[in-house]
């Protein structure tokens, strides 16, 4: 990275407090594809001059896949350790790069003692656009391109965030087309509920293939996503149909960074 991304530990040592904590998530930290999204979220935060920090090696899995696989023990062990850390740093506001982390911290941590204002990065970006801090200066890149947006379940149905991602896309001079199964009727990419970490049960086809088939039927240039798990599933699906040269799967953070000349 061309600028320094500070950790909470460093900030505290320097006697500073961030405006917002960037909860990167495991996919965003380790998965090569998702790391690009993480970097673009950081670039956006840096670009608008928002003082932010990450937890660095102190961050640990929220426990989402463990909970949804049925391991409530492991989930609560993770949750309580994370909450202890977040409370020790007196964190007030968190932006996450992953809808699963977003949902867990927002909805499941409060009862266990973790109360924070939690937003997903698409909501942050939409807010920055509304405040005029982000402008689609490099918008020509998207001009006339057909973009379809895949609703991540844990952003859409799980938390009712349907509009923020779409408003980001509407800023561009692109052609936003909707799949038939969108918003409340959105079809899962197939990775939720710990499916990301296992082979699917036997059936007629894989869920991500079904989803990408639907997306490709619109002949889009770009499939927009807002979740690192969806990113993996959709990219795999596009490769399955050998369309990776014609159709890009991009996160909304990547699209925003590109439109603002940050990447």
């Amino acid at each position: 990275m061309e600028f320094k991304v500070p950790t909470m530990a460093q900030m505290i040592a320097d006697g500073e407090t961030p405006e917002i904590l960037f909860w990167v998530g495991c996919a965003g930290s380790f998965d090569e594809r998702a790391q690009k999204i993480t970097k673009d979220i950081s670039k956006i935060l840096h670009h608008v001059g928002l003082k932010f920090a990450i937890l660095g090696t102190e961050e640990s899995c929220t426990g989402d896949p463990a909970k949804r696989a049925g391991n409530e023990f492991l989930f609560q062990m993770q949750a309580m350790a994370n909450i202890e850390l977040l409370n020790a740093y007196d964190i007030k506001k968190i932006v996450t790069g992953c809808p699963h982390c977003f949902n867990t911290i927002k909805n499941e941590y409060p009862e266990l003692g973790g109360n924070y204002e939690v937003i997903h990065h698409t909501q942050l970006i939409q807010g920055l656009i509304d405040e005029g801090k982000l402008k689609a200066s490099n918008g020509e890149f998207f001009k006339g391109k057909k973009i379809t947006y895949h609703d991540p379940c844990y952003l859409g149905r799980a938390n009712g965030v349907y509009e923020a991602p779409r408003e980001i896309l509407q800023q561009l001079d692109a052609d936003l087309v909707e799949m038939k199964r969108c918003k409340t009727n959105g079809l899962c990419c197939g990775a939720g509920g710990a499916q990301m970490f296992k082979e699917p049960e036997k059936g007629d086809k894989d869920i991500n293939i079904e989803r990408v088939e639907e997306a490709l039927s619109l002949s889009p240039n770009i499939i927009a996503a807002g979740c690192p798990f969806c990113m993996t599933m959709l990219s795999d699906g596009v490769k399955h149909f050998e369309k990776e040269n014609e159709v890009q799967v991009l996160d909304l953070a990547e699209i925003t960074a590109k439109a603002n000349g940050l990447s």
Partner: protein
Amino acid sequence: MQIRCPMILQFLFLVLLIAAAGLFAKNISKIRRNILLGRDLDLSDQKGLRWMNLLKIALGQSKMAAKPIPFLLHLCLYVGFVIINIELIEIVIDGLAGTHRVFAPMMGSLYNFLIASFEWLAFLVLLACVVFLSRRNLIKLKRFTGTEMTKWPKSDANYILVIEILLMTAFLTMNAADAKLQFANVEHYIKAGSFPVSAFLQNILPNDAASLIAIERTCWWFHIIGIFAFLNYVPYSKHLHILFAFPASYYGSLHAKGKINNMQSVSNEVKAMLDPTFVPVQTESPGRFGAKDATDLNWKNLLDSYACTECGRCTSMCPANQTGKLLSPRKIMMDTRDRITEIGKNIDLHGKDFKDDKSLLDQYVSREELWACTTCNACTEACPINLDPLSIIIELRRYLVMEESAATASLNTMQSNIETNGTPWKFANSERANWTN
């Protein structure tokens, strides 16, 4: 008046009324007992919001509107059912007192308006039933098929529609005969009511008073006995939703859909592990973690299972089901209901401590079904009355993982990675911030 409607018939009516109401109350109280076999759950909060949900979702049918055609047809049945049943009050009084159209003299022209409305509604009910029957049996909509849609659920749906057709036909034929008798100034048949629909049936009825009286009386008795019988069919049928949709929507989740409940029993153990001085919050002894059998589920899960009308919107939206996996959220609801009903029957036959060697898990719901769920909430979103198959799936998974350690191998790897590295993949946590370099 007493000649045609002797005391014996009034007495017979009273006996039938008491028998029908009594049997219905007995069966409903059994279902209530079955539901309360589930675990405790405190849902006494936010009463205002809950009442709003009941009014909006159950009474106002707000979520039905997502599918406009079934919504309109269902609305005909629903409004027809509720409003035509107003006339039941009159029928019951007439039956008990031996009167005929007892409300007519006191209501005047309002009575004519009401009877005319009932006729139009009866017509709409008939129409809706015919369309529904053809959707199920001629067009064979995919939503009404599936592994769980065996002979009984299919017949059940058809029985309901056929019974409603018979009841409405009897109602209209009765009115047609009545109108003709009124016109012929036959004694007892006071001039009352307006018959815009049944007027079309008058021509096919005979003209002599004796036959008309026989038809009118037969239809009257058929209609009311049919209603008594139907009332007692409902507790065995998916049609129970006409009652249970109300408590189910009242007690429905008020949280964001993405929230899965935190188990207090686990919090106690985890907190005690982290802090030996911790004094646990008193909870009901969980017995086991998660659910193996229907009685391990909470009472709301069981209430949901009885409220389900097997419409299949959940299953038709389920990504696992759409791609040919075994999972069907409707089957989860039906299995839960069938199992808790079986447990209830065992209690009736063998006493409350009887245990058979079956359970909801494995005998009803297979592990393969459970592991196919992506927790995407398409099912809970699609349900017109906010039932929650997902929470049943999660409870069964909790039992598999926490009691039997029976997750699939790859899920076990994911869990041990979290335990050792704090991430579901096999990465060292020290590398977590390497992307910043």
